[in-house]
């Protein structure tokens, strides 16, 4: 780094001061925060969709099962967080999905 002292310097604001500095790869690659949408049901663990119990348009009560997400040899029930309607289903049986993958949209 000492060979290229001024290369890659950017403005970097801490509180009200702006500093000239370099950024780290980790900082540049950080994930920007987005407020969670309560109507999006995301996978909280990577795994496989075993079974889907509901259909689009179906009305459901809080706690009713939407699907089973198998992960680490456990069959996890994914349930309705509140009374509502299934708007669209983004996964189907046998899908292998990563963490935070949109599975179901409800309202």
């Amino acid at each position, binding site marked *: 780094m000492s060979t290229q002292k001024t290369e890659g310097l950017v403005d970097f604001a801490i*509180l*009200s001061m702006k500093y000239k500095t370099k950024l780290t790869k*980790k900082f540049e690659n950080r994930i920007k925060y987005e407020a969670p949408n309560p109507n999006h049901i995301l996978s909280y663990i990577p795994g496989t969709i075993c079974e889907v119990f509901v259909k689009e348009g179906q009305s459901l009560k809080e706690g009713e099962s939407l699907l089973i997400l198998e992960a680490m040899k456990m069959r996890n029930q994914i349930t309705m967080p509140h009374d509502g309607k299934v708007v669209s289903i983004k996964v189907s049986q046998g899908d292998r999905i990563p963490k935070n993958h949109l599975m179901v949209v409800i309202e």
Partner: protein
Amino acid sequence: MSLKKHILDLRKRKEQVQKGGGDKAIEKQAAMGKMTARERILALVDKDSFTEYDLFVEHTARDFGMDKKQLHGDGVIIGTGTIYGAPICIFAQDFTVAGGSLGLMHARKITKIMDHALKMRVPLIGINDSGGARIQEGVNSLAGYGEIFYRNTLASGVIPQLSVILGPCAGGAVYSPALTDFVFVVENISKMFITGPGVIESVLGEKISMEDLGGARVHAETTGNAHFFSNSEAECFEQIKKLITFIPWNNSKKAKAFPPKPPKFKGKIEDIIPSDPKTPYDVRDVIKAIVDDSDFFEIQELWAANIVIGFGRLNGETVGFVANQPMVLAGVLDCDSSDKAARFIRFCDAFNVPIITLEDMPGYLPGVDQEHAGVIRHGAKVLYAYSEATVPKVTVILRKAYGGGYIAMNSRHLGADFMFAWPMAEIAVMGPEGAANIIFKKDIDEAEDKDAMRAIKVEEYKEKFANPYVAAAKGYIDSVIEPSETRALLLHAIEVSAGKDDHRPAKKHGIPPF
């Protein structure tokens, strides 16, 4: 048999076992660009100093046809030697013998040399090159790992422990290095991970190469698991040898003193630092301007580079440096840099190495990712480590010391023995712009030309508070010094604190925010 025959027989046995996995396996090892376990040990220790133990140990497995297999030395070499005359205990896993897999007797050899190191109070060096647990030995190999981790923990803070990753080190095996003080990795050779690319792909469908998952660069740059990165085994061994010269044999000793040397740096130290607090510079240049022979041995150079840690010597004595790096992320404290500094401070404290803190930092890194990653919990480690440390602690405030950063970076309030500040230091609750905006909000809001009023008030605040004299007036700073006096004053501080005897309340152990 005559005595001579006995001796010849011994030599023959030794020769056979010392070949490890045999010529073919050795060729394979060389084809991977790796040295053999024996070559590694001999390259690392002083010439003719290595004495091997347990050469004739054999495994005890009986299942899956193992009873008919002979594994020379059970895949690991252990012994004692010296590095620049310092005694050390060492083990090296031999990948040519059953892939260096860890079975019960293999583990017993390692724990034997660990026990020896702890009893003799000498540093332990472990060279890891192993495919993992020996599946044929089942739970016995798991027992072996557990017994190693237990000893790593008992030895922690008593003897320095070094782990050298020269091959695969996967699954449970990674936790022994993780428990030790310094981990060395080599480009293209070291591989460390809990679950390998195969499992990750089959479970999650995520494709990644072994190198990108747990190669040397990943651990040196991204995870912070490794402390030293090099491009070849030879370079790695030089790093290990150099580290050994900087650290003591155990926690009851001090590191060996070397003949004092002046720094090679010949300029003016104040010229390194721009007076505008927003302009960066490389804080390592300041360290090199201070230490003997300008020889600074940096640790974790590639990870969390916004803080710099490492060893240097003052008047021949080892000291540890912790310095904010304005060149990277403006030198802020964040989760990673806090972890990095805190662990190093604890190493220095455990092994009687005085700590010199060079401070120039704007505060903590703002951001949702930082808050959610637990910057509170991580940042607290720095406060804990500094407050807990009883070795001599000296701070030099070079430029900025704002807010929580001022407290965290070994302030008087956390028990600093000597607080020095350069005359351009700004010790304040926050930067002048921020402070003026809050304190003079009414004046600024009511002014016709808000920007002009703000500028006036910022100047006013700077004049009054952005200096070292407010803190000096309270005795929070012992001396405001000229930059050119820094080395002389640090030498003096180390000299007069040689007999420091500071105690903490008796306890089983503290509970740092791990």
